[in-house]
């Protein structure tokens, strides 16, 4: 469904992504794990059109992906960004309406809103509240609900567990599986490697802008190098 081929991104003189290639199949959860600064968010932002890439090609549903962010959303890819970036000055309802910014199919929008309120009942309870007053977990749910409002086929989730309490992290990951069951494809970027691998079909390990490992998520979870570097087992020198 999504094919990233030999992507190279530079920030000034820094070579942030060095020929990254990934493949996301329809209906799957694909996780990208890696430490801080490995280039995970850069990869996701390149797909979303927020970061411009110098070389490489991104193909989506057999077509070249447009480079402007709004055209990418129109094509059916949405991003739930790191740090959530909900609109704290707008109400919960207005945030959800922003998610549907490019859509004009009123009835379908209302239907999707209902579905999102089933998925996140707390948002229904807070629909007229200013989003800035929500708790961190609620804001994450709002960010995910807002992303779903664009009715995407592919959802890019950037660090959804960041800064949340362990119990909430479990809830968020349960919801990610539910979103997959709605027929959506998910590209998940996470520092919480164990969680990310356990719900994924396929995974990539990104280190300093290079894909160092890739494969079946269940296999990667047992991989010695992954266990050592990201799952905290037999930890020696790496953090």
């Amino acid at each position, binding site marked *: 469904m999504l094919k990233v081929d030999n992507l190279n991104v530079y920030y000034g003189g820094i070579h942030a992504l060095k020929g990254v290639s990934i493949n996301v199949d329809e209906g799957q959860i694909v996780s990208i794990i890696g430490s801080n600064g490995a280039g995970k968010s850069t990869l996701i932002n390149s797909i979303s059109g927020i970061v411009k890439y110098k070389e490489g090609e991104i193909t989506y549903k057999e077509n070249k992906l447009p480079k402007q962010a709004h055209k990418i959303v129109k094509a059916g890819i949405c991003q739930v*960004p790191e740090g959530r970036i909900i*609109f704290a000055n707008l109400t919960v309802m207005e945030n959800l*309406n*922003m998610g549907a910014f490019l859509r004009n199919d009123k009835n379908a929008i209302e239907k999707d809103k209902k579905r999102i309120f089933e998925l996140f009942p707390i948002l229904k309870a807070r629909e007229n509240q200013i989003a800035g007053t929500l*708790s961190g977990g609620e804001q994450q749910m709002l960010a995910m609900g807002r992303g779903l409002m664009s009715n995407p086929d592919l959802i890019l989730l950037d660090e959804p567990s960041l800064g949340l309490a362990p119990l909430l992290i479990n809830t968020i990951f349960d919801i990610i599986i539910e979103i997959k069951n709605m027929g959506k494809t998910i590209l998940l970027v996470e520092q919480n490697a164990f969680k990310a691998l356990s719900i994924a079909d396929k995974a990539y390990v990104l280190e300093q802008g290079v894909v160092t490992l890739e494969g079946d998520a269940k296999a990667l979870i047992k991989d010695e190098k992954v266990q050592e570097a990201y799952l905290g087992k037999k930890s020696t020198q790496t953090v």
Partner: protein
Amino acid sequence: MSGFLQQVVNGLSIGSVYALMAVGYSLVYSIMNFSNFAHGGVIMIGAYIGYFCLTLLNVPFFVAFLLSAIGSGLLAVSMERVVYRPLRKRNAPFLYFIISAMGASIFLENIVIASPIGPTFRTYPAIFSTTPIMLGNIALGRIDLLMFVISTVSLAALIYIIEKTKIGLSIRATSYNIKGSTLMGVNVDMVIFIIFAMGGILAGLAGMLFGMKYTVYPQIGNITTKSFIAAVFGGLGSLQGAVVGSILLGLIETMVSGYFSSQYRDLIAFALLIFVLVAKPTGLMGKNTEDKA
């Protein structure tokens, strides 16, 4: 008592036109985080367009209003295109925006002075009788009334667009976070185009109103200093704040002129600005909603 009410009426009339200009500052600031000091130039051009429409083209005065609004809107949009967009694309620091804005302002002023229009003061043809409408003991100047009506109607329209329409929603979202609204599929170039167009249209109206009330000259845009103060006073980036700040400033100015002396007018206005900024740096209604980390 009637003396006081008279000052209130005068204050509302001048304050409403300040508001018409102040919202232009606020709209741009809310999204681009800089004060567009070229706004005065847009107002000045609006005043000239209205003047020449009436004197050279002899169009009805409401057509002149329409043309100066359109002309100023186009000017504001093209300035964004030529001056600010290249800076935006290069992620220039905001100081560069302010300096470019000042440059653009001086450029506009001098291009008028250098042109056949020249630096002379020009008086709008008399459209209304100068005898005021009497409401008991209160005199309502016809132009003052027009200033108040046009400003109130256009500000109401602007606030309706911002609060109730989808475009308005996207402007409010973009003002909170550009990346966030980009990810929702908002074309930020388009949003910026729209805010400059709206600010420019209102500036054109304000320019013509000021031209009618006073005279037209290349430095007439300097009057925006007042509306800039009002926008800061009310809270830069907040439309409601800009309107409230402008009305308050208009009232304070007329009260000071009426009860003390017009010499103290600007002194007190600027002292007030400094006082508000010291006491509450975000202004009366400035944005301060926080994002949770």
